[in-house]
Each structure stands twice: as structure tokens, then as C-alpha cells.
């Protein structure tokens, strides 16, 4: 099989993993030295595909032959897809070629499970080793970690890769039992702990060899089973807490060819994925806890964003005086983000904040207006009930013409 055919099949097989970040790597440079590549902590999106996703890394599987039969996965062993397998050298060649063209900033390599977890992991490590040692490649490497692989192999992977990830896929044991019988939450978390331990060991030891300096991430599939958003976000919160994960990615289940009966035929609304990302950002960046966002089991609202929903439930805190309030509280105002908060704090050191300043900072005024006070503004809507505000502020779906082909 030609290299280009393998690339087509193995890129097509890899597209369901949402992660694409190339950020968080330490500063490296090839200035004046042999070898290739640099990283500076900032990711670069080299292209965008028409699904709106960025192309930052060469994202491929080493092979899509797989012993497992995960129902949601296009590469499960019972799936009728074309199969291919790269040799490690072929992946190296493609990575370096795309890198020199400035098409990508590195490699994100994953694989179906062949022979055994250890064998598969060895192959992945081999690619990273060739890139780093034979070719002095200093670009970004993200390796998918096979949960049941020997911890020693995971440690080796951490020496070469900037980021390691183990996919949870489904956040409950029950979900895994039904849809991914070969996977176990226990061994997934064990692998995460191995990576976490590796990271902790080299922490504060400047002379120690690096270990996955861009940390670890994971992915959960949304909408392949009936797990609700509350369960998903509570388990994400636990992962952030227990293993210091950098990111949890949420991937709306994407219908696959010859879909088995155990998974839905249609994708969940992409808005659900979007709301999960918004809520996740509130956990990571804004100091929210999952318990604040959910009153009980259930989904996030699709028609208002989670921050607005929280503010409507906590009207007693608002309106906030922007000239006095704590920065952490200002950033909890709907429509005002971390950047705007920082700018407001800088500005109020110089002078009083006025209403028109907010308009200039391009925050979402329509959402923010009922929730703040400035020296020349007091919201009329301060006394309006939350139910009425909800009616005024929720997103109404745009009327849409039906597609001609359904």
C-alpha cells in the first residue's frame, strides 16, 4: 500500500479525537544547531478544516487494526473499515516533512491495540524516540497512552513526549461495561496515576530529565450513552483534582459508518458539547465548582450559557459595583471574561469606571447589564425577576430552512 493511502486511512481513523493542542511545551529552539523544530509554550493552529477545527499537529493512528470492540469507535474490530498500518519510520518521515513545510507544529500519535497493550505502547514510544534522538526533533509530541501498558513504558513515553493522554471515553464504569467491554475505569485511572507520579517526581528538580512537561489530558465522548452533563462535569472535576489534568476534551459522539445498534444513530446537538466546554472553562479558569453549576442530576441548559444560568440562580450577589468588587467576583458576571476583568482592574487604579468603558471593552453588554453598577449606571433590571430575565436573555434558535436532502 502506498504511503498516501495509509495516510488517508489513518488520518480518517484519527479524526474523532478532539484534542489538538500544541501548547504548554517548554521553550526549545534549533537556532544554530542541527535538528529541527522549536516550541515556546504557545500553540500554533496552522490550518482549519471546514468543521471549524484547527490543524495544529499531524494527528494519525499508527494503525487502525484493533483487538477491542468499543461500540462507539469506527475502528472497533467488528467494524467494516479499510485498515492500514504505518511503520514507525513512515510516521517519522511524514512528521518531519509536514513540519518543514510549516503545516504542523508536531505529532499527535495514537493507535489501535495490536497484539498487546505493551507491544502497541512500545511502537508509539519507538516513533517518539526516533524523532527525538535520531532526528533531534524539538517540535511538539503528544502520545496517546495505552491504559494497560507497563508503567515502565509509560515512563519512557513521558521522557520523549510533551503531552500524554489516556482517554476516559465514558465517565461511568457502567457505560464502559456496556459499550467498551475491554476497557476498565480502574486501569485507565491507574495509567493516569502513573503519569501524574512521573510529573510530580521531576517537579522542582531542574536537573531531572523532563517528563511530559505539557501535562496530561483526556477525552470523554458525549452522547454515546445516556450519561448526563452533571455526571460528566463532576468526573472531570475529580480528574482535574486527582491527577492535575491540564484539559478534559468533550467530543460529541459522531455517527460512524455501519453503526452498531448499541449506540445512537444521530449525533447529540453540537451545542451540548459547546456548553460542556463553557462549563469546563468555568471550572478551570473562573474558580467555579461543579456543585455550583448543578443543583442535582441533569444536563446543562442549551439555551443559556452556564455562567448566566448560575448568575440568574444567585441574584442576591448582584448587581456588583465594578469600582469596588473583588476581581474574582467581577469575572463571575455573565458577559465579562477574565481579560475584561483584568482590564477593569487596571483602569480603576487610574480612575472611576463608567458605563461607556464597558462598551469599549467589547464585553457582552446585553448579558452583563443587569448584573453590575458603575459610577454613572445602575441597572433598571436589578429588580426584574430571574424568570423574566431568562426569557429576555436566552438564545432563541434561528429559524432554519430544511436541507433539500434532509
Amino acid at each position, binding site marked *: 500500500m502506498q504511503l498516501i493511502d495509509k495516510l488517508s486511512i489513518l488520518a480518517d481513523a484519527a479524526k474523532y479525537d478532539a484534542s489538538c493542542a500544541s501548547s504548554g511545551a517548554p521553550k526549545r529552539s534549533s537556532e544554530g544547531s542541527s535538528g*529541527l523544530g522549536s516550541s515556546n509554550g504557545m500553540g500554533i493552529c496552522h*490550518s482549519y478544516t471546514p468543521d471549524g477545527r484547527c490543524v495544529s499537529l499531524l494527528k494519525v493512528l499508527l494503525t487502525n487494526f484493533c483487538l477491542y470492540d468499543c461500540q462507539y469507535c469506527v475502528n472497533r*474490530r467488528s467494524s*467494516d473499515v479499510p485498515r492500514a498500518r504505518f511503520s514507525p519510520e513512515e510516521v517519522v518521515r511524514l512528521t518531519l516533512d509536514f513540519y518543514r*513545510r510549516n503545516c504542523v507544529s508536531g505529532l499527535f500519535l495514537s493507535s489501535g491495540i495490536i497484539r498487546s497493550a505493551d507491544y502497541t505502547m512500545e511502537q508509539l514510544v519507538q516513533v517518539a524516540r526516533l524523532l527525538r534522538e535520531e532526528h533531534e526533533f524539538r517540535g511538539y509530541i503528544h502520545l496517546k497512552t495505552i491504559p494497560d501498558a507497563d508503567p515502565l513504558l509509560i515512563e519512557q513515553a513521558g521522557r520523549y513526549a510533551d503531552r500524554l493522554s489516556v482517554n476516559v471515553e465514558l465517565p461511568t464504569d457502567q457505560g464502559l461495561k456496556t459499550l467498551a467491554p475491554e476497557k476498565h475505569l480502574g486501569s485507565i485511572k491507574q495509567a493516569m496515576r502513573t503519569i501524574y507520579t512521573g510529573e510530580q517526581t521531576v517537579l522542582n528538580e531542574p536537573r531531572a530529565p523532563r517528563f511530559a512537561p505539557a501535562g496530561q489530558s483526556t477525552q470523554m465522548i458525549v452522547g454515546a450513552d445516556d450519561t448526563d452533563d452533571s455526571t460528566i462535569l463532576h468526573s472531570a472535576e475529580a480528574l482535574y483534582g486527582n491527577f492535575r489534568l491540564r484539559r478534559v476534551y468533550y467530543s460529541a459522539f459522531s455517527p460512524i459508518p455501519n453503526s452498531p445498534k448499541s449506540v445512537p444513530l444521530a449525533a447529540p446537538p453540537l451545542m451540548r458539547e459547546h456548553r460542556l466546554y463553557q462549563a469546563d472553562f468555568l471550572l478551570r479558569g473562573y474558580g467555579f465548582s461543579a456543585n455550583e453549576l448543578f443543583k442535582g442530576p441533569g444536563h446543562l441548559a442549551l439555551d443559556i450559557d452556564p455562567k448566566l444560568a448560575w448568575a440568574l440562580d444567585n441574584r442576591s450577589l448582584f448587581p456588583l459595583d465594578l469600582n469596588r468588587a473583588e476581581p474574582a467576583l467581577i469575572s463571575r458576571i455573565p458577559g465579562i471574561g477574565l481579560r475584561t476583568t483584568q482590564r477593569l482592574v487596571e*483602569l480603576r487604579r487610574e480612575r472611576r469606571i463608567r458605563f461607556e468603558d464597558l462598551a469599549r471593552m467589547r464585553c457582552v453588554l446585553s448579558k452583563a447589564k443587569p448584573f453590575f453598577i458603575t459610577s454613572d449606571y445602575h441597572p433598571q433590571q436589578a429588580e426584574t425577576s430571574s424568570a423574566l430575565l431568562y426569557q429576555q436573555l436566552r438564545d432563541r434558535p434561528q429559524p432554519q430552512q430544511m436541507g433539500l436532502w434532509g
Partner: protein
Amino acid sequence: MISLDCDDLFDTWRQQARWLLSHSIDPSRVSWAGEREADLFASDESCPEQPGPFRARIPQALLELLQRAACYRGEQRWSLLYEVLWRVSHGDRTAMLSGDQLGSELQRRIKQVDREAHHLHAFVRFVRLPEGRSSLAEQPEYVAWHDPAHDILAPASRHFIGRMGRHRWMIATPRDGVYFDGEHLHHQRQCPTGWQQLAQAGDDPGGELWLAYYSHIFNPARLNPKVMQGHLPTRFWKHLPEGPLIPALISEARHGKQRDGQASAVAARRGKRIGSGQ
């Protein structure tokens, strides 16, 4: 009205601005060449020859902001900077902050410039040059054509020195150009025609691999061209090898051939189930 010309060079502008400031010349009395075509009120007021008495203290942070904003191509490129400098040196630091009307324009320009530098890092595409194609003593191994909207090439292209190691590379634009000879970066304010021709030669052996990757990593079941265009402005499409693929990928996905994520070229191949006992 004093008319000045800084040849779009920051250092020249800086000298001029320092001079003006020392004489406490109000921003409304100065304009820079190219900013007003026929100025009705232009009287040839000349710049004083000796430095004036006013000694302004300029925070280092402001100088950096001004230098970044100076890369912006657009209306009042230089007089806006002088106005900011004037206000800050007279004690009004809000002119640097985005809460202020002038400051927000300054910050907007910086953001545009940074964005354009980022576009260079992201969307430059190097093509490997076959041996012996150029009259340069040591010809570049990789060439690229790019068309930035602001004057970011010289500072932003340093990024590729770290990235490309000892490779020799060149980026040509309609205005200026850079060439890295393996050790030093050379910037030409007027890009030599020879460089421009090299960069636009067109043939790209091996380029089909990237095109295959691009069309197969796209998930047609999640078509969302609006988001794509927000991040990848249409003006770059024509210089990107994958640009010509985009309309066809969109229309194929839109016309219902794609109910799942698989690319149609892969769906057309023969599949293989794997025995569970393997």
C-alpha cells in the same frame, strides 16, 4: 502645521517625536507624510533645530507598546502614536489602556499586529526548492510566499530561525522579504524580484501528502464553515495549498453525502473486519 516624513521607520519617528515633545508641540500641529494627501491648512511650519527644554519621562512599557503598534498599516499610523505619547508624557496614563478611547485604538492596533504575526507563523507554507534554481551564491532550501496586512515580516519571521535550525529559507512578500542563510537573517525593505519569482514558482513535489491529510482529517458530519472562516480568513486561502480544496469539501458535506464522519474516499475502499479470536 508641521509635516514630517519618517519613511515608515519606527526609529526615525522616535527621533522626530522626541524632538517635537521637547518643544511641547501639540499633536494637532503635526502630521506625518502620507497621512493627509492635500492638507488645506498645511503651512510649511518647520521643525525647530535645537532640542527644546521639556524633558519627558517615558515608561519603558509605553515604548514597547508604541513600537508594536507602529507595525500597523493604516490611517494616522504615526500621528496616533504621537498623541498617545503626548498624553502619557503629560501624566495621563489612561491613554495606554484599552478603557480609554485613544488607548483602545492603540490596543486594537497592537492586537491586529500580533494577530498578523501569528498568521505569518501559522500560514506560511515552505516549499522545498530543487537544487540549482537560483542565482544566489547559496540558494535557499525552502521558499515561501506570504502577503501580510501589516509590517510584521522582519520581527515576526525570527520565529522560523528557531524552528528551521540550520536550513536556509526565504519568505517573499509583495513589499519586503527575508532570507536566512543558515546563520544570519537578511531583511530587504524592497523584496528583490528574483526572490519573489523563486517564491511563486509553483511546483511542489510531495505536496499531495499534505492535501490528502487535510481532506481526511476533516469531519464532514460536523461541518461549520463559519467558525473556520473566523480563524482562517479567506484572504489567505489563495496562498495555502489546501485553500483550493475547501469549497469542494464544504459542498460535498452540505449535499448530504456525509451522514457520518468518514471521508467518502475511505468509504469507497474495501473494509476488513477482524476476527475476535485474533
